[in-house]
């Protein structure tokens, strides 16, 4: 599927789930500061948005609520992609 941008430009990240305030989903984040995040289950595929500031080199920090929506927990991997492209 290399022709699909969201797959071609997506990166894999380990999930860390935090309930600390600063990682909670901010309501007023500019859309260009958001990344698309999805779980890796074909049978129950889910997508959400996460602030770019939660992204690290090899991990992404998700709020408890978002982790629950995506049905992932700490140590799982997710796929991340920039809404506009250019992750890689």
């Amino acid at each position, binding site marked *: 599927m290399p022709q699909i941008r969201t797959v071609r430009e997506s990166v894999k990240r*380990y*999930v*860390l*789930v*935090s*309930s*600390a305030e*600063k*990682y909670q989903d901010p309501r007023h984040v500019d859309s260009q500061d958001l990344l698309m995040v999805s779980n890796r289950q074909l049978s129950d595929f889910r997508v959400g948005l996460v602030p770019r500031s939660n992204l*690290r*080199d*090899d*991990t992404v*920090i998700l709020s*408890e609520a978002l*982790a629950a929506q995506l049905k992932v*927990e*700490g*140590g*799982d991997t997710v796929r991340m992609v920039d809404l506009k492209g250019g992750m890689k």
Partner: protein
Amino acid sequence: MSEQQPGVFYRGQWIAGQGEAWERADPVYGRCIWRGRGASPAQVSDAVDVARHTFPAWRALGFEGRALIAQAFAARLKAQRESLAHALAEETGKPLWEAGTEIDSMAAKVALSMQAYGERTGSREQDVAAGHAVLRHRPHGVMAVFGPYNFPGHLPNGHIVPALLAGNTIVFKPSELTPRFAQLTARIWTEAGLPAGVMNVVQGGVETGQALARHDGIDGLLFTGSSRTGVKLHQQFAGRPDKILALEMGGNNPLILAGSWPEKAALHHVLFSAFISAGQRCTCARRLLVPQGKAGDRFLEQLCHAAQHLQVGAFDASPAPFMGSLISAPARQQVIQAFEHRIASGGVCLLAPQLTEGTALMSPAVVDVSSASGVPDDEIFGPVLQVYRYERFEQALELANATRFGLAAGLLSDDPGLYRQFADAIRAGVVNWNKPLTGASSAAPFGGVGASGNHRPSAWYAADYCAWPMASLVADHCELPATLPQGMSL
């Protein structure tokens, strides 16, 4: 507190325990401060699985990312110092001022551990004769941490912080005598942004502890506690070179008074060494070695007088006491039994303890065991000081080393020659001259020899047991050597 408290913390959530039920009352007022059920063996297993599953993500976060969270933890400890100290003092019986210093030590541990990580482990590169050498350190995986009751904050923290910084995940089993402070510690970590599943807590007693120690999913166990339990763990880990075991146990610590000494300063150092924390520090002086003769007699007289007047009281008493209570009434009973056993074996009571009924309060006791027979080489974990009178300094050195333990030892003397002799002969991990035995610096390695540990010193050296070294020789591409080894042709 009448409501049931949760006994298991994993996936970032507290849930009800399904193991043994118990209740913790504070040791002076007898008020219930924690009631609940511990983690069942199945829940312990779940906690280890969660820690295992989270490990690669936590490791991947990198040292800087982990250090930021640990720094946030330290900042929160400082911000909540007063309320945390109060909770800690109430649960352990130690005076508020002392509990405050324990919170300070916990916070200070973060910067020290970050520094030690870089200095003791971390990574470096250099060009050597054989090529380019790279040294890196890798976390073990899931570490079980067993905490003691005397410093329910500072001591487990001394394992948890370096283990987390190195990239390990944790399953922490606190003492069943201090469940509430462990709950608070987990809360502070969560507020600091520690991701779910990185540090998990299983409350409980023997059943929970055994389930954790036996679990095949742990890569190591970091223990601070009694020698009896430590030896059992050591037996259990026999034949398991794949698991790292760090044991910090007690001592039967000698403090020698020799030659001449400034009276008041020596008195202060002996009182502090023997009775701080109601004698519930592993570095407390248990044996005081005093020369025979008039100067020694006078010192002991003054010591007993001053010990008798040490203020003993509730953690929140005003004015503040020097000593709080022991951790529990049964613990006090054991200490009193040990004291009475010394008297029955021919020891002479120099100062009898005063007990406050219905509490775990106990005032200092001093017993001269010079002519007692069969005094066991055990740690009396309370405010009981045993005195030995000696004739010659060499005899004092022999007495000091006549223990299976080797945690702390000290000399109080104006004579630097005696100190040289002492430092040469003594066998202990913490050896002080003209300083109290307690209050070891976190910037130095901490641990003992003999039955006091298994040669895995903590504090500054905790970094060593939290990571394994990976030594590499590297080159950008394979290169054929100028000459082939004999017997090889290509």
